[in-house]
Protein backbone atom coordinates (compact mmCIF):
# COMPACT_ATOMS: atom_id res chain seq x y z
CA UNK A 1 0.00 0.00 0.00
CA UNK A 2 3.03 2.26 0.55
CA UNK A 3 3.94 1.73 -3.07
CA UNK A 4 0.39 2.67 -3.98
CA UNK A 5 0.57 5.92 -2.00
CA UNK A 6 3.92 6.75 -3.57
CA UNK A 7 2.61 6.20 -7.07
CA UNK A 8 -0.40 8.39 -6.37
CA UNK A 9 1.94 11.36 -5.83
CA UNK A 10 3.15 11.62 -9.43
CA UNK A 11 1.40 11.81 -12.81
CA UNK A 12 3.44 8.85 -14.13
CA UNK A 13 2.48 6.87 -11.07
CA UNK A 14 -1.18 7.77 -11.46
CA UNK A 15 -1.12 6.79 -15.14
CA UNK A 16 0.40 3.42 -14.23
CA UNK A 17 -2.19 2.92 -11.48
CA UNK A 18 -4.99 3.80 -13.91
CA UNK A 19 -3.70 1.12 -16.31
CA UNK A 20 -3.44 -1.40 -13.50
CA UNK A 21 -6.95 -0.46 -12.40
CA UNK A 22 -8.36 -1.09 -15.89
CA UNK A 23 -6.39 -4.34 -16.15
CA UNK A 24 -7.70 -5.42 -12.71
CA UNK A 25 -4.18 -5.76 -11.40
CA UNK A 26 -4.87 -3.85 -8.15
CA UNK A 27 -5.75 -5.63 -4.94
CA UNK A 28 -9.20 -5.13 -3.40
CA UNK A 29 -7.80 -2.58 -0.99
CA UNK A 30 -5.91 -0.68 -3.70
CA UNK A 31 -8.92 -0.76 -6.01
CA UNK A 32 -11.21 0.70 -3.34
CA UNK A 33 -8.64 3.38 -2.50
CA UNK A 34 -8.22 4.28 -6.15
CA UNK A 35 -11.98 4.57 -6.64
CA UNK A 36 -12.22 6.80 -3.59
CA UNK A 37 -9.53 8.98 -5.08
CA UNK A 38 -11.37 9.04 -8.43
CA UNK A 39 -14.50 10.30 -6.69
CA UNK A 40 -12.54 13.30 -5.39
CA UNK A 41 -10.16 13.95 -8.30
CA UNK A 42 -11.77 14.01 -11.75
CA UNK A 43 -8.29 13.95 -13.26
CA UNK A 44 -7.96 10.31 -12.22
CA UNK A 45 -11.20 9.55 -14.09
CA UNK A 46 -9.63 11.10 -17.19
CA UNK A 47 -6.61 8.80 -16.76
CA UNK A 48 -8.93 5.78 -16.50
CA UNK A 49 -10.66 6.88 -19.72
CA UNK A 50 -7.26 7.09 -21.46
CA UNK A 51 -6.16 3.74 -20.04
CA UNK A 52 -9.40 2.08 -21.14
CA UNK A 53 -9.02 3.57 -24.60
CA UNK A 54 -5.44 2.31 -24.90
CA UNK A 55 -6.17 -1.22 -23.68
CA UNK A 56 -9.26 -1.49 -25.88
CA UNK A 57 -7.16 -0.28 -28.80
CA UNK A 58 -4.54 -2.95 -28.09
CA UNK A 59 -7.23 -5.64 -27.96
CA UNK A 60 -8.71 -4.55 -31.28
CA UNK A 61 -5.29 -4.12 -32.90
CA UNK A 62 -4.24 -7.63 -31.83
CA UNK A 63 -7.57 -9.02 -32.98
CA UNK A 64 -7.13 -7.29 -36.32
CA UNK A 65 -3.63 -8.70 -36.70
CA UNK A 66 -4.85 -12.20 -35.84
CA UNK A 67 -7.73 -12.13 -38.33
CA UNK A 68 -5.47 -10.69 -41.04
CA UNK A 69 -3.17 -13.70 -40.72
CA UNK A 70 -5.90 -16.33 -40.48
CA UNK A 71 -9.05 -14.85 -42.01
CA UNK A 72 -10.79 -18.23 -42.37
CA UNK A 73 -10.74 -18.74 -38.62
CA UNK A 74 -12.67 -15.61 -37.81
CA UNK A 75 -16.21 -16.44 -36.67
CA UNK A 76 -16.38 -19.73 -38.55
CA UNK A 77 -19.92 -20.54 -37.48
CA UNK A 78 -21.29 -17.28 -38.78
CA UNK A 79 -19.45 -17.42 -42.13
CA UNK A 80 -20.36 -21.09 -42.64
CA UNK A 81 -24.01 -20.37 -41.98
CA UNK A 82 -23.95 -17.42 -44.31
CA UNK A 83 -22.25 -19.45 -47.05
CA UNK A 84 -24.72 -22.28 -46.66
CA UNK A 85 -27.61 -19.85 -46.88
CA UNK A 86 -26.25 -18.29 -50.05
CA UNK A 87 -25.64 -21.68 -51.64
CA UNK A 88 -29.11 -22.88 -50.75
CA UNK A 89 -30.67 -19.73 -52.16
CA UNK A 90 -28.69 -20.06 -55.41
CA UNK A 91 -29.60 -23.72 -55.76
CA UNK A 92 -33.28 -22.97 -55.19
CA UNK A 93 -33.21 -20.15 -57.70
CA UNK A 94 -31.48 -22.33 -60.26
CA UNK A 95 -33.99 -25.14 -59.76
CA UNK A 96 -36.85 -22.69 -60.13
CA UNK A 97 -35.43 -21.32 -63.37
CA UNK A 98 -34.94 -24.81 -64.78
CA UNK A 99 -38.47 -25.79 -63.76
CA UNK A 100 -39.95 -22.69 -65.32
CA UNK A 101 -38.08 -23.16 -68.55
CA UNK A 102 -39.09 -26.79 -68.81
CA UNK A 103 -42.77 -26.25 -67.94
CA UNK A 104 -43.55 -22.97 -69.70
CA UNK A 105 -43.49 -23.14 -73.54
CA UNK A 106 -41.63 -20.39 -75.37
CA UNK A 107 -43.70 -17.59 -76.83
CA UNK A 108 -43.43 -17.17 -80.61
CA UNK A 109 -42.13 -13.64 -80.20
CA UNK A 110 -38.93 -14.72 -78.40
CA UNK A 111 -37.42 -15.99 -81.57
CA UNK A 112 -35.63 -18.84 -79.87
CA UNK A 113 -38.44 -21.45 -80.02
CA UNK A 114 -37.46 -24.80 -81.45
CA UNK A 115 -39.41 -26.46 -84.22
CA UNK A 116 -40.79 -29.02 -81.75
CA UNK A 117 -42.11 -26.24 -79.57
CA UNK A 118 -43.80 -24.60 -82.54
CA UNK A 119 -45.36 -27.91 -83.55
CA UNK A 120 -46.61 -28.50 -80.03
CA UNK A 121 -48.12 -25.03 -79.92
CA UNK A 122 -49.87 -25.57 -83.24
CA UNK A 123 -51.21 -28.90 -82.00
CA UNK A 124 -52.55 -27.29 -78.91
CA UNK A 125 -54.32 -24.64 -80.90
CA UNK A 126 -55.88 -27.24 -83.14
CA UNK A 127 -56.95 -29.28 -80.16
CA UNK A 128 -58.62 -26.33 -78.59
CA UNK A 129 -60.39 -25.64 -81.86
CA UNK A 130 -61.54 -29.24 -81.95
CA UNK A 131 -62.89 -28.95 -78.44
CA UNK A 132 -64.92 -26.00 -79.54
CA UNK A 133 -66.14 -27.78 -82.69
CA UNK A 134 -66.18 -31.51 -81.92
CA UNK A 135 -66.55 -32.50 -85.59
CA UNK A 136 -63.10 -31.36 -86.55
CA UNK A 137 -60.56 -33.98 -87.53
CA UNK A 138 -57.18 -34.04 -85.99
CA UNK A 139 -54.12 -35.35 -87.69
CA UNK A 140 -52.91 -38.57 -86.12
CA UNK A 141 -49.37 -37.39 -85.54
CA UNK A 142 -50.52 -34.07 -84.30
CA UNK A 143 -53.05 -35.84 -82.09
CA UNK A 144 -50.32 -37.82 -80.36
CA UNK A 145 -48.26 -34.67 -79.92
CA UNK A 146 -51.35 -32.84 -78.74
CA UNK A 147 -52.15 -35.68 -76.33
CA UNK A 148 -48.66 -35.47 -74.95
CA UNK A 149 -49.06 -31.74 -74.60
CA UNK A 150 -52.44 -32.24 -73.00
CA UNK A 151 -50.94 -34.77 -70.61
CA UNK A 152 -48.53 -32.13 -69.48
CA UNK A 153 -51.36 -29.72 -68.77
CA UNK A 154 -52.35 -29.92 -65.12
CA UNK A 155 -55.87 -28.56 -64.88
CA UNK A 156 -56.85 -27.94 -61.30
CA UNK A 157 -59.93 -29.68 -59.91
CA UNK A 158 -61.57 -26.41 -58.94
CA UNK A 159 -61.48 -25.29 -62.60
CA UNK A 160 -63.10 -28.49 -63.75
CA UNK A 161 -65.75 -28.14 -61.10
CA UNK A 162 -66.34 -24.53 -62.08
CA UNK A 163 -66.66 -25.51 -65.75
CA UNK A 164 -69.13 -28.25 -64.86
CA UNK A 165 -71.21 -25.89 -62.76
CA UNK A 166 -71.22 -23.25 -65.50
CA UNK A 167 -72.42 -25.68 -68.21
CA UNK A 168 -75.44 -27.58 -66.89
CA UNK A 169 -76.41 -28.45 -70.50
CA UNK A 170 -73.34 -30.66 -70.74
CA UNK A 171 -74.79 -32.99 -68.14
CA UNK A 172 -76.70 -35.90 -69.61
CA UNK A 173 -80.38 -36.33 -68.81
CA UNK A 174 -79.71 -39.71 -67.29
CA UNK A 175 -77.54 -38.37 -64.53
CA UNK A 176 -79.19 -37.62 -61.22
CA UNK A 177 -78.01 -34.38 -59.69
CA UNK A 178 -77.55 -34.28 -55.93
CA UNK A 179 -80.12 -32.13 -54.17
CA UNK A 180 -77.68 -29.41 -53.27
CA UNK A 181 -77.00 -28.79 -56.95
CA UNK A 182 -80.68 -28.12 -57.71
CA UNK A 183 -80.29 -24.42 -57.22
CA UNK A 184 -83.11 -23.31 -59.37
Amino acid sequence: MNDFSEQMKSIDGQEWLALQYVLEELSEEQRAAFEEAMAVEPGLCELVVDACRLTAGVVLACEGARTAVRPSVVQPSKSMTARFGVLAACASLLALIVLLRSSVPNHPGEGTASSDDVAAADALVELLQDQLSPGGEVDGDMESVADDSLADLMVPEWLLTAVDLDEPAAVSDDEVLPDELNLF
Partner: protein
Amino acid sequence: MLSQNAGKHSANETRSGDGDERTPRLLVEGACVQWEADLKALLLGVLRDRHLAEDAFQKMVVKAIESAGAARAATLRGWLFRIALNEARQIQRENRRDAVHRARFANHVSVERLRVEDAGLLVDVGLLSDELVQSIGQSLVRLPQMQQEVIRRRIYEGLTFAEIATQMNQPLGTVLTWMRRGLQRLQEDSGLRSLLDE
Protein backbone atom coordinates in the same frame (compact mmCIF):
# COMPACT_ATOMS: atom_id res chain seq x y z
CA MET B 1 -19.03 20.59 -3.39
CA LEU B 2 -22.48 19.50 -4.35
CA SER B 3 -23.92 20.37 -0.95
CA GLN B 4 -22.23 23.79 -0.98
CA ASN B 5 -23.68 24.72 -4.35
CA ALA B 6 -27.10 23.25 -3.87
CA GLY B 7 -28.31 25.97 -1.50
CA LYS B 8 -27.24 28.88 -3.75
CA HIS B 9 -28.65 27.27 -6.82
CA SER B 10 -32.04 26.52 -5.30
CA ALA B 11 -32.33 30.16 -4.22
CA ASN B 12 -31.59 31.32 -7.77
CA GLU B 13 -34.12 28.90 -9.16
CA THR B 14 -36.96 30.13 -6.95
CA ARG B 15 -36.19 33.74 -7.88
CA SER B 16 -35.91 33.08 -11.62
CA GLY B 17 -38.99 31.00 -12.27
CA ASP B 18 -39.77 28.10 -14.61
CA GLY B 19 -37.65 29.23 -17.55
CA ASP B 20 -34.39 29.18 -15.60
CA GLU B 21 -35.28 25.88 -13.93
CA ARG B 22 -35.07 24.26 -17.35
CA THR B 23 -31.56 25.61 -18.00
CA PRO B 24 -29.61 23.34 -15.64
CA ARG B 25 -31.48 20.35 -17.02
CA LEU B 26 -30.68 21.32 -20.59
CA LEU B 27 -27.08 21.90 -19.56
CA VAL B 28 -26.82 18.43 -18.05
CA GLU B 29 -28.60 16.75 -20.95
CA GLY B 30 -26.30 18.46 -23.43
CA ALA B 31 -23.23 17.48 -21.44
CA CYS B 32 -24.34 13.84 -21.29
CA VAL B 33 -24.66 13.81 -25.07
CA GLN B 34 -21.39 15.66 -25.62
CA TRP B 35 -19.35 13.47 -23.29
CA GLU B 36 -21.17 10.19 -23.81
CA ALA B 37 -18.05 8.53 -25.25
CA ASP B 38 -15.77 9.49 -22.37
CA LEU B 39 -18.39 8.58 -19.76
CA LYS B 40 -18.92 5.17 -21.34
CA ALA B 41 -15.16 4.64 -21.52
CA LEU B 42 -14.91 5.38 -17.80
CA LEU B 43 -17.75 2.97 -17.07
CA LEU B 44 -16.15 0.31 -19.26
CA GLY B 45 -12.88 0.78 -17.40
CA VAL B 46 -14.67 0.23 -14.09
CA LEU B 47 -17.10 -2.52 -15.10
CA ARG B 48 -15.22 -4.18 -18.01
CA ASP B 49 -18.48 -5.21 -19.63
CA ARG B 50 -20.13 -3.15 -22.34
CA HIS B 51 -23.67 -4.11 -21.41
CA LEU B 52 -23.15 -3.15 -17.79
CA ALA B 53 -21.41 0.04 -18.94
CA GLU B 54 -24.34 1.00 -21.14
CA ASP B 55 -26.78 0.17 -18.38
CA ALA B 56 -24.81 2.28 -15.92
CA PHE B 57 -24.72 5.15 -18.42
CA GLN B 58 -28.51 5.17 -18.70
CA LYS B 59 -28.86 5.24 -14.92
CA MET B 60 -26.22 7.95 -14.70
CA VAL B 61 -28.12 10.16 -17.13
CA VAL B 62 -31.33 9.78 -15.14
CA LYS B 63 -29.55 10.53 -11.87
CA ALA B 64 -27.74 13.51 -13.37
CA ILE B 65 -30.94 15.03 -14.75
CA GLU B 66 -32.68 14.54 -11.42
CA SER B 67 -29.81 16.35 -9.71
CA ALA B 68 -29.36 18.97 -12.44
CA GLY B 69 -30.07 21.76 -10.00
CA ALA B 70 -26.76 21.07 -8.27
CA ALA B 71 -24.68 21.15 -11.46
CA ARG B 72 -22.23 23.92 -12.33
CA ALA B 73 -20.95 24.49 -15.85
CA ALA B 74 -17.34 24.90 -14.72
CA THR B 75 -17.23 21.55 -12.92
CA LEU B 76 -19.86 19.72 -14.92
CA ARG B 77 -17.53 17.12 -16.42
CA GLY B 78 -16.06 16.06 -13.09
CA TRP B 79 -19.54 16.08 -11.57
CA LEU B 80 -20.81 13.69 -14.26
CA PHE B 81 -17.75 11.46 -13.82
CA ARG B 82 -18.54 11.21 -10.11
CA ILE B 83 -22.16 10.25 -10.76
CA ALA B 84 -21.01 7.68 -13.34
CA LEU B 85 -18.49 6.20 -10.93
CA ASN B 86 -21.12 5.94 -8.19
CA GLU B 87 -23.50 4.13 -10.53
CA ALA B 88 -20.76 1.75 -11.64
CA ARG B 89 -19.79 0.95 -8.06
CA GLN B 90 -23.44 0.38 -7.19
CA ILE B 91 -23.75 -2.10 -10.06
CA GLN B 92 -20.56 -3.81 -8.91
CA ARG B 93 -21.96 -4.18 -5.39
CA GLU B 94 -25.23 -5.60 -6.76
CA ASN B 95 -23.40 -8.03 -8.99
CA ARG B 96 -21.15 -9.20 -6.20
CA ARG B 97 -24.27 -10.16 -4.30
CA ASP B 98 -25.56 -12.03 -7.32
CA ALA B 99 -24.26 -15.59 -7.29
CA VAL B 100 -24.21 -15.76 -11.06
CA HIS B 101 -21.71 -12.91 -11.31
CA ARG B 102 -19.70 -13.75 -8.22
CA ALA B 103 -17.06 -15.65 -10.13
CA ARG B 104 -16.55 -12.81 -12.56
CA PHE B 105 -16.47 -9.83 -10.21
CA ALA B 106 -15.37 -11.11 -6.81
CA ASN B 107 -12.51 -13.36 -7.85
CA HIS B 108 -9.57 -11.11 -8.56
CA VAL B 109 -7.20 -14.04 -8.69
CA SER B 110 -8.49 -15.11 -12.08
CA VAL B 111 -7.65 -12.44 -14.60
CA GLU B 112 -9.98 -11.80 -17.45
CA ARG B 113 -9.07 -9.95 -20.57
CA LEU B 114 -11.14 -7.15 -22.03
CA ARG B 115 -13.14 -8.96 -24.69
CA VAL B 116 -13.22 -7.77 -28.27
CA GLU B 117 -16.96 -7.18 -28.05
CA ASP B 118 -16.50 -5.01 -24.97
CA ALA B 119 -13.68 -3.06 -26.60
CA GLY B 120 -16.03 -2.55 -29.53
CA LEU B 121 -18.13 -0.23 -27.36
CA LEU B 122 -15.47 2.46 -27.74
CA VAL B 123 -15.60 2.05 -31.50
CA ASP B 124 -19.38 2.41 -31.43
CA VAL B 125 -19.23 5.65 -29.43
CA GLY B 126 -16.51 7.06 -31.66
CA LEU B 127 -13.67 6.98 -29.16
CA LEU B 128 -11.65 4.47 -31.20
CA SER B 129 -11.42 4.92 -34.94
CA ASP B 130 -10.00 2.40 -37.41
CA GLU B 131 -7.11 4.79 -37.92
CA LEU B 132 -6.34 4.91 -34.21
CA VAL B 133 -6.57 1.12 -33.84
CA GLN B 134 -4.18 0.69 -36.75
CA SER B 135 -1.85 3.26 -35.26
CA ILE B 136 -1.85 1.42 -31.94
CA GLY B 137 -1.06 -1.79 -33.79
CA GLN B 138 1.84 -0.13 -35.59
CA SER B 139 3.16 1.38 -32.35
CA LEU B 140 2.90 -2.03 -30.71
CA VAL B 141 4.97 -3.62 -33.43
CA ARG B 142 7.64 -0.95 -33.01
CA LEU B 143 8.12 -1.89 -29.35
CA PRO B 144 10.98 -4.16 -28.30
CA GLN B 145 9.95 -7.77 -28.85
CA MET B 146 9.70 -8.71 -25.17
CA GLN B 147 7.58 -5.69 -24.25
CA GLN B 148 5.36 -6.39 -27.21
CA GLU B 149 4.93 -10.01 -26.15
CA VAL B 150 4.08 -9.20 -22.55
CA ILE B 151 1.50 -6.61 -23.57
CA ARG B 152 -0.11 -8.93 -26.09
CA ARG B 153 -0.25 -11.89 -23.72
CA ARG B 154 -1.56 -9.86 -20.80
CA ILE B 155 -4.08 -7.57 -22.52
CA TYR B 156 -5.18 -9.64 -25.52
CA GLU B 157 -4.78 -13.22 -24.30
CA GLY B 158 -5.65 -12.48 -20.67
CA LEU B 159 -2.79 -14.45 -19.13
CA THR B 160 -1.68 -13.58 -15.63
CA PHE B 161 1.77 -12.10 -15.14
CA ALA B 162 2.78 -15.30 -13.34
CA GLU B 163 1.76 -17.37 -16.36
CA ILE B 164 3.56 -15.00 -18.72
CA ALA B 165 6.70 -15.16 -16.58
CA THR B 166 6.58 -18.97 -16.71
CA GLN B 167 6.00 -19.06 -20.46
CA MET B 168 8.76 -16.57 -21.18
CA ASN B 169 11.05 -18.10 -18.58
CA GLN B 170 11.62 -14.74 -16.93
CA PRO B 171 11.31 -13.44 -13.36
CA LEU B 172 7.95 -11.92 -12.47
CA GLY B 173 9.53 -8.55 -11.75
CA THR B 174 11.10 -8.45 -15.19
CA VAL B 175 7.78 -9.18 -16.84
CA LEU B 176 6.08 -6.41 -14.84
CA THR B 177 8.81 -3.97 -15.83
CA TRP B 178 8.46 -4.87 -19.51
CA MET B 179 4.72 -4.35 -19.24
CA ARG B 180 5.01 -0.94 -17.63
CA ARG B 181 7.70 0.32 -19.98
CA GLY B 182 5.89 -1.00 -23.02
CA LEU B 183 2.63 0.71 -22.08
CA GLN B 184 4.45 3.94 -21.27
CA ARG B 185 6.12 3.88 -24.67
CA LEU B 186 2.76 3.28 -26.31
CA GLN B 187 1.30 6.27 -24.47
CA GLU B 188 4.27 8.43 -25.38
CA ASP B 189 4.35 7.38 -29.03
CA SER B 190 4.20 10.67 -30.91
CA GLY B 191 2.02 9.45 -33.73
CA LEU B 192 -0.38 7.84 -31.30
CA ARG B 193 -0.42 10.85 -28.99
CA SER B 194 -1.61 13.16 -31.76
CA LEU B 195 -4.51 10.85 -32.54
CA LEU B 196 -5.40 10.31 -28.87
CA ASP B 197 -5.46 14.05 -28.26
CA GLU B 198 -7.88 14.71 -31.13
